[in-house]
């Protein structure tokens, strides 16, 4: 038997934009165990509900994470709206869906880029991010912000988008879709890329279920589960079937995400076809009272917001279960037994968002 060595991975590492530390116990080149230590980005923002009232807290919720920012804010609003028993107008629901899907597209493109970087395909990294900038342009035109755009608020949305603008967006998205297909085919068909991803970091369907994986990680392992199936916002009216792959390796997870980009474009198209003129917000009356769980699908998987109100303008308790946190246990399971050189690719295929996980 060969000697065991411990190789530290992170917190400062070139493939990680965010700090997480893994102690990789290796025998020769094989990883025997991965021991994580987290807490570098813990801020303790759930406790801020005691200092910021329920309307202001939307800004904090959006800053839980800078990538899935919009969906965080929206889910928080959904939970508070339930406590206030507010009925959100249709147009606001459709706009929320459109922005959610735009966030998903930009997040998946960002992820594709980082993954390409993790296996050293620099130009693919650049191409993915080039297209992502175009998506950010659409977001900036409609909301005024690039990554944290504060479009959701308790009771509706902050801005309306004219129907002319919506048609323009759709035309642009169709063009970008073609470009995304081009880079997508490199990810899915290039021999070198396939070598780095096929059969690497396999997570079986049983493991994915028992370890509580969420999002593309779960769907890449053959489980058909997506919170959008519950029909929140306007997904119920549009109809939704999740993208599922069965192999459970890095390649399957990549394929799920690439297909989800195309699906998001279709969802936006359906929204734009169905959206009708109308109010975009309702007046917020009363104080939140009672408790509620709001569940939505982020680019990384299911997010759960728990809010408990006590009839005052400050919530009593707010709790977030983020997708990356749920995916950490499956990640450690997939790292066991892999090659040291594959560690960056496997870590990235869960689409880690550490600031979500640690808050």
């Amino acid at each position: 038997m060969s000697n065991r060595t411990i190789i530290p991975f992170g917190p400062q590492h070139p493939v990680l934009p965010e700090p997480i530390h893994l102690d990789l116990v290796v025998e020769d080149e094989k990883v025997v165990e991965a021991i994580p230590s987290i807490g570098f980005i813990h801020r303790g923002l759930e406790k801020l509900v005691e200092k910021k009232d329920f309307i202001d807290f939307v800004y904090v919720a959006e800053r839980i994470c800078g990538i899935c920012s919009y969906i965080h804010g929206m889910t928080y609003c959904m939970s508070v709206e339930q406590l206030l028993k507010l009925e959100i107008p249709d147009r606001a629901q459709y706009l929320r869906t459109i922005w959610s899907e735009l966030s998903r597209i930009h997040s998946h493109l960002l992820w594709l880029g980082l993954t390409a970087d993790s296996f050293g395909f620099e130009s693919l990294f650049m191409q993915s991010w080039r297209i992502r900038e175009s998506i950010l342009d659409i977001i900036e035109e409609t909301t005024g912000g690039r990554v944290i755009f504060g479009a959701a608020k308790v009771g509706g949305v902050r801005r309306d988008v004219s129907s002319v603008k919506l048609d323009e967006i759709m035309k642009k998205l169709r063009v970008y879709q073609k470009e995304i297909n081009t880079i997508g085919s490199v990810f899915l068909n290039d021999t070198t890329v396939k070598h780095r991803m096929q059969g690497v970091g396999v997570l079986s369907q049983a493991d994915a279920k028992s370890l509580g994986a969420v999002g593309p990680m779960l769907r890449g392992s053959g489980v058909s589960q997506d919170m959008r199936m519950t029909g929140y916002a306007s997904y119920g009216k549009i109809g939704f079937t999740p993208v599922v792959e069965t192999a459970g390796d890095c390649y399957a997870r990549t394929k799920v995400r690439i297909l989800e980009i195309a699906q998001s474009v279709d969802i936006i198209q359906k929204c734009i076809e169905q959206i009708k003129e109308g109010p975009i917000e309702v007046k917020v009356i009363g104080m939140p009272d009672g408790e509620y769980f709001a569940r939505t699908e982020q680019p990384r998987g299911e997010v759960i917001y728990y809010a408990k109100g006590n009839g005052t303008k400050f919530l009593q308790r707010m709790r977030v279960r983020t997708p990356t946190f749920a995916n950490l246990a499956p990640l450690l399971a997939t790292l066991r037994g892999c090659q040291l050189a594959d560690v960056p690719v496997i870590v990235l295929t869960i689409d880690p968002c550490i600031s979500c996980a640690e808050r």
Partner: protein
Amino acid sequence: MSSISKSPWVIHYDGSSCNGCDIEVLAALMPRFDVERFGVINTGNPKHADILLLTGSINEQNKPVVQNIYNQMPEPKVVLALGICATSGGIFRECYNVMGGADKAVPVDLYVPGCAIRPEAIIDAVVQALGILEKKRAAMNAAAV
């Protein structure tokens, strides 16, 4: 103008930011903004870096990490606090696990507010940092003579 300001190498570390600023730092290196055409290269090794881009606030756990990166960088070096969290703690200032801005751990040369900071602001800050690098270098040379 010496070689250092013709091709400054930057290293990025995320203190405890929300990711928004980190992603914008990466976006500044991408084809749209492409700072690499000015010779700015992102490195993962502090020993190769001239400019430290810090995003996010400082807490007990990441303070030694930030100081470690800073100490490994060769002189002359410049530290940029990017985003409002690195400047003062921002929206998270009142959180129990936030000590404050980047200056709680290392000396900061430039504060660049914004939430999230825009890539244009990052590029502007790096250009200003070149002037500071030159000054520090001149001071080092004068002290050596």
